[in-house]
């Protein structure tokens, strides 16, 4: 459990990203973002990470609200806003598809 506080030190991931790190629920619908930080202090956040919402992955916000809908690795996930607040992202160029 002690390795889960990740600072955004992944240079490869960072080079393609634009803008500042923002909480997950503040990105625009349909835009792509890269996860830079996940605070796993709440146990349920780990379930989110196991489904792919972890540092380095690109995600897309499909629907806002509480719960919201994310798309990660081609899967839609319904996530309560309380958990989404633990995830910080950086908006990035391009959509999720087509670039492998």
């Amino acid at each position, binding site marked *: 459990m002690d390795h889960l506080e990740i600072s955004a030190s992944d240079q490869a991931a960072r080079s393609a990203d634009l803008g500042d790190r923002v909480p997950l629920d503040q990105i625009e619908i349909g835009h792509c973002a890269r996860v830079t930080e996940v605070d796993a202090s709440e146990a349920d956040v*780990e379930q989110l990470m196991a*489904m792919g919402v972890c540092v*380095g992955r690109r995600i897309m916000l*499909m*629907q806002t609200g509480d*719960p919201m809908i994310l798309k990660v690795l081609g899967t839609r*996930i319904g996530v309560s806003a309380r958990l989404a607040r633990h995830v910080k992202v950086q908006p990035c160029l391009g959509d999720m598809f087509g670039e492998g």
Partner: protein
Amino acid sequence: MPPGRKALDADEVCIALVGNPNAGKTTLFNALTGLRAKTANFPGTTIERRVGHTRLAEHRVKLLDLPGLYSLASITPEERLAREVLLGQQAQQSQPQGIILLLDATTLERNLYLASQVLELGLPTVAALNMVDLAERSSIEIDLEKLEAELGCPVVPVVARSGRGLDILRQHLERMIDPAGSSLARTSSEPFCDCSGCPYKARYDWAEEVGARCINGRTTAHGVKTDRIDAVLTHRWVGVAAFLSVMFAVFALIFWVAQYPMDWIDAGFGYVGSVVGRWVPPGDFRSLLVDGVIGGVGGVLVFLPQICILFFFLALLEDTGYLARAAFVMDRLMRRVGLPGKAFVPILSAHACAIPAIMSTRVIEDRRDRLVTILVLPLFSCSARIPVYTMITALLFPYRPVLAGLVFTGAYTLGIVAALIMALVFKRSILPGESRPLVLELPSYKLPSLRTALLMTLDRAKIFVKRAGTIILAVSILLWFLASYPRSEPPAAALALQVEAQELVSAGQSDSASALEEEAAQLTAQGRLAQSLAGRAGRAIEPILRPLGFDWQIGIGILSSFAAREVIVSTLAVVYGVGESAVEEDPTSLYDSLRASMRSDGTPVFTTATSVSLLIFYVLAMQCLSTQAVTRRETNSWKWPMFQLLYMTVLAYTVTLVVYQVLRTWTPG
């Protein structure tokens, strides 16, 4: 288990089926094992354990279906259990000799996360790449040879739904368990990635790299169609309206379609009862068989069609992917009272019967959420209450269907409101905390598999019938005993009538004689019930029931309906002297005679106030030993069923008391 059987089981090769939820695991399991799969719980848990057999060319293999998992990281109880089983640490479950690793071709990268953890266990593994047809349609091209090289195990493309590729999968399984051919399966337990940092990041980095090397074209299905449907079905308000419409349609179907088979089952048990009645000489044994066993078990089994239809539609809805959306939409609303969105499936089921509803709370992972849901489920009006509601509406508003309909709606609404309020009370008191925050995959929509739905229905039906044959049977016999013993002599009035009947027979008037005999039989049954343990108990609790407007006869009805709520209808028929046969032939005769029944002081028993208070009592009271038994099984302790009985009885008593006392003052007798 006999010793010989155990030895055979130990010799059998066991293969575990592991995969993500929604990857088609159930469909593959059913396709490989067919109809003879057995569902039970892993010992000491409420996690379902499905075991079936599949025939290979030379071996017969036991297939163990593990719960759907996203990882083996021991976050949820399912993950911990799967990990223990795969490592051979689970008591009473030997370590599987091999693994079928199910991968969804349309979301391969995400599936590779679990794959890396499973392969590192070092057990012989064959990967089944499912839904390759859907992947092809979405222009996802997976290079199988490269994937095999990356994973170090054979990869077999399959379509579990149509059976495509299953023969090849079987051949690979044969080779896997055959010692000579086991080199094909990965046996080393080298880690796939350096997991010293964030384990999630490292594994997903690896998964994306493998994806990049093995997948040409798109990596995942775009799912434009699913996005479009979701825009409607997960919409804040339209989604709720859609959910309510679906729920209403399922309900309407349950009650409309089920009434025919229910009538057949009822008639069937009636027929069996009359046949037994003809062949077995009159006496205690016949009464035990006809009233206790056949009547008791039949009274519960009559709900089997409703349960089958409910689970059939739930399985269909789940398979299409809609149930996840329904949970998503409901989560927003139900979280406010401390219930998770997933509780709506059990709530839907509870309107048919609380027993399958409590069984289906297994979809809720969190213990607090599950307990709250189980505790409030019996408050929703189950179909066993329908005969009681029918009787009371007939007492209140004979021949006025609109008002009767309102009473019915009111009873259902009262149940729902009470359940939501109690959930909120539990959240603020004994089970504090928020409901578990939602993390729920919304899988792509697809056409449901009829076969999967039918197998699921069969599975649930088996569990229900087994329950009726064991615990419900035992309860029925117990209550029959309480209502029949100690035996008492027929009352003097009945004896006098019999003597009179004898005289009429000798005078040649057999018609009048049989009428008198029937009257005598009724008096005898009435007297017998009054003198029985149940009758004495009814008298004993009368002082407590009096403030609710109930007399000791209703007390017997309430006590006897612990077997099944609708039993009160037949019990009242006996205690108020209508005769059980009369109820079946012409129910209005019961209602008329109940309306006409008087207390010893000459006032009618079923005043408006008493009828309403009886209705409210039946909406709120926990009167079902079978439900209690299921609660005990699902919570693994007697504490919770006892608490459920206590709080519901207190709730029912208090509300009924207030309503009766208010109504008595305001309504004419």
